[in-house]
């Protein structure tokens, strides 16, 4: 009943083919089959946000999506989004503002913050909007203030740049 299934998808712009068990979730597939270990596994039930990845352009929980569901879709991980330079300013701001300590939540925080910044389309979200958008990402080093500071810096810098 649980025969392996062939899938073909795009991961960070590269075509990938694999034969997988239906029960394998996306983040396990990325980490174990593709050795893309930047996406982390925390709670495995959608609460912590450490496994956040982008699928067809929007952020999702990598632990709540099966890899078989991604057949034909485009998956982007922190590795790919780092390589393209899309969030270089956000990463620099996280360093400058000490917005990470152990770093476990950081890939998920970056992808989640980037979705808000992209959606804001040149307008700077308020601290309240930043907090609401990041509410599903846990930082157990309790670095939330610094994370919001970093996102706020990038929001205002990008707004200036957009003028």
């Amino acid at each position, binding site marked *: 009943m*649980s025969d392996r299934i062939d899938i073909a998808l795009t991961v960070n712009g590269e075509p990938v083919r694999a034969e997988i068990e239906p029960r394998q979730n996306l983040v396990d597939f990325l980490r174990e089959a593709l050795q893309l270990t930047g996406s982390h596994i925390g709670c495995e039930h959608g609460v912590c946000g450490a496994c956040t990845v982008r699928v067809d352009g*929007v952020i*999702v929980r990598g632990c709540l999506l099966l890899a078989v569901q991604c057949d034909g879709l485009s998956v982007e991980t922190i590795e790919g989004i780092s390589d393209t330079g899309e969030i270089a300013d956000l990463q620099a701001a996280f360093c400058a503002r000490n917005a990470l300590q152990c770093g476990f939540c950081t890939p998920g925080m970056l992808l989640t913050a980037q979705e808000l910044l992209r959606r804001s389309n040149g307008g700077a979200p308020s601290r309240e909007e930043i907090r609401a958008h990041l509410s599903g990402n846990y930082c157990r080093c309790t670095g939330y203030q610094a994370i919001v500071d970093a996102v706020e810096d990038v929001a205002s810098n990008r707004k200036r740049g957009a003028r």
Partner: protein
Amino acid sequence: MKPAPFAYAKARSLDHAIALLDGAPEARILAGGQSLMPALNMRLSAPSLLVDINRISELSQITQRNGQLEFGALARHAEAEHSRLVAQLAPLIAKALPHIAHPAIRNRGTIGGSIALADPAAELPACLLALGGEIEIASRAGRRTVAADAFFKGLFETALSPGEIITTIRIPAAQPQDRFGFAELARRHGDYALVGLAAAARAKPRVLRLAYFGVGTTPIRARAAEAALERGDIDAAVAAVASDLDPNGDVHASAAAKRHLAGVLLRRVAAQLSPP
């Protein structure tokens, strides 16, 4: 944890999904998966087959038709949250959506999935009850429509039978004189509510509905409070809530605390229902 093994089938169409479900009583429908996958990962559920309906494009639309707003069962929370049509014709749902979990969850979670799961602390079942909505269901036997009042039967129990699938959620479109109110109390943004209230005050015909969530096994109409609020007596309405609701206490709040909070929410929501 990892889920127990299961088979997986991708439905190509509604008819295909119905055929797949028809032959497999132990199958579960996989829509957004934002509640099903945690249940599988924690091995609270171990279906033999998942029927993935995510590629059925005919179930994804949000459309206006005959004075009603129709949500295809697969419409994502995030699509509805950012839809102008929903903001205009279903302002109650637009108010409720940002309270559902978090952005990454809303990008996947579906309107139909929330209704089918019928979590007693979830926002959308209560909204549907307050709005007097209806649920269209398809199966091998054909199509049927169930009113929200008759759909939520018990704890995670609905009018859905095995082999049935929700296709459409329908609500009467908001008219200019209609008023809507929504409030919930949760420990953290995005958590399930300790207590929540969705309310609709329709002008033509004049109907007031108060639907509480998080205070019982289903979303619950507070009918005595509705009658008192119709008379404009907010104090009597708050007093009546205590008899309308019989919440169980849990680790987050005692029964007495929930009853008190239900009254607090009623005052907040009543203020939203007053004409500007």
